[in-house]
């Protein structure tokens, strides 16, 4: 098994309370299903969409956001999968696609190469 990080980009929540609740319930069901199948190493955390950016030799501090709203990382999950292809397949169940978001699938580098 290898480890992968799912980075959730964009896809702000539902327009109406009802849609927001439905979206959230889909997320919880999806993560639960991944967990039941042994693919979740760490469920991860949500990230605030604002913060600070510290940059350069001068260590200049600027306010977020750090990217276009549609690209901001809103959270991550640590996944276990056979290979990149399987990790990609697993990501396809993510409800973020219903709200125009994206999942970035990144393999975690292995120590013993």
């Amino acid at each position, binding site marked *: 098994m290898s480890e992968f990080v799912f980075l959730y980009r964009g896809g702000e929540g539902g327009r109406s309370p*009802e849609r927001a*609740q439905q979206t*959230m319930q889909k997320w*919880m069901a999806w993560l639960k299903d991944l967990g039941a199948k042994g693919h979740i190493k760490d469920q991860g955390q*949500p990230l605030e969409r604002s913060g600070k950016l510290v940059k350069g030799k001068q260590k200049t501090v600027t306010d977020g956001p750090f990217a276009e709203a549609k690209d901001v990382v809103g959270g991550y999950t640590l996944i276990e999968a056979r290979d990149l292809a399987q990790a990609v397949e697993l990501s396809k169940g993510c409800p973020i696609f219903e709200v125009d978001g994206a999942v970035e699938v990144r393999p975690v580098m292995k120590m013993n190469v």
Partner: protein
Amino acid sequence: MGLDEHLFRREAGRMVATLTRIFGVHNLALAEDVVQDAFCRALEVWKFRGVPDNPAAWLMATAKNRALDVLRRDRTVRNFAPELGRLLESEWTLVPAVEEQFEPHAIRDDELRMMFSCCHPKLTEEAQVALILHILCGFSVDEVAGAFVSSHAAMEKRITRAKKVLARSKKLFDIVRGEDFTVRLPAVHRALYLLFNEGYHGASHESAVRTELCGEAMRLAGLLREHPPASTPATFALGALMCLHAARLPARLDSSGDLRSLFDQDRSRWDVGLVAEGQRLLDLSAAGPVLTEYHVEAAIAWVHTTAHGAGDTDWNTIVSLYDKLLAIRASPVVALNRAIAIAERDGPQRGLEEIHAIADSDRLVHYPFFHAALGEFELRCGRHETARDHFRRALAVARNSTERQFFEHRISACERPTHELAL
């Protein structure tokens, strides 16, 4: 941890009502933004960390904290609720003042204030109902449009205009001062009645949506009963009529999803709890000399509830109740229902005469059950072809697939020879 099916929607109404109280009615849009923001946070956090033990309290606390942020940030550039004015100036007073607004009894009063505010006399009844559904019941514009089978554009226009009227009304309705209260209460009754009716008789084909509308109307009517100046005999009568009708909802569709008329329903599927609650409220409504349309409608529903079927229904009483209802609030639909009761009492030919005598029956041509009643009575008189034509007209104006299916069955009933119908 599971979640109530419509928790977000229900809490949205409570949160907007309370935040509007704090921010002032002119800042309604700001209150809505803060609520939207709280839901975004819940969505982001809960999907990773699971639903908290008390999700409603979590949402309220989030809204409260965001409200404090906004009040601190904007206190120099924006006017908030005038009664909050001085309290905003120091942290010592700000936090307790806002905390107090989030006490359960304060939130309930805020819901009432908003309910009365939505029934602004400058708004049409349709706009009042749409606004209540949108603001107090947390329905999105799309969901309100869906419930009323209206286009998104038309509903958005109606709600946007209604919100402007509300935001310009300077302050929320005062639910404490007696005089205005008595004047506005009938408008609130009417709006809740229409909301319930939209659920009960409305056009949406999804029975789930319609049950929700009835449920929301009943919830808001319950809030009125908890607030003494609003718990008048008319309020009890309105609650009674809602309970007695809602009790029949489970039996309106049979196991194959077909519409069942009142006399064709499996009465064992009626909700006995709601019947009992309806009776209790009906008893409470009997205090005082005022007889409203809600009293009469509740009484009609009660007569139906106590009968075992069409055969032993007390049609005499029902006809005289419809006479009373016509005297209080005349409408072609009430006249149609009276004609149906007369047909049950005196036979189909008398029913047809009464229907033809309805003065403004042209207002009923888009109402499918007008044609269906004509069809039913012609059929009982043995005039199959005429009956079929009426049912075809009903089918042409049917508003959803359940109604269409029902009228198609009636049309095929007209094809059968008479002796089979008798079976």
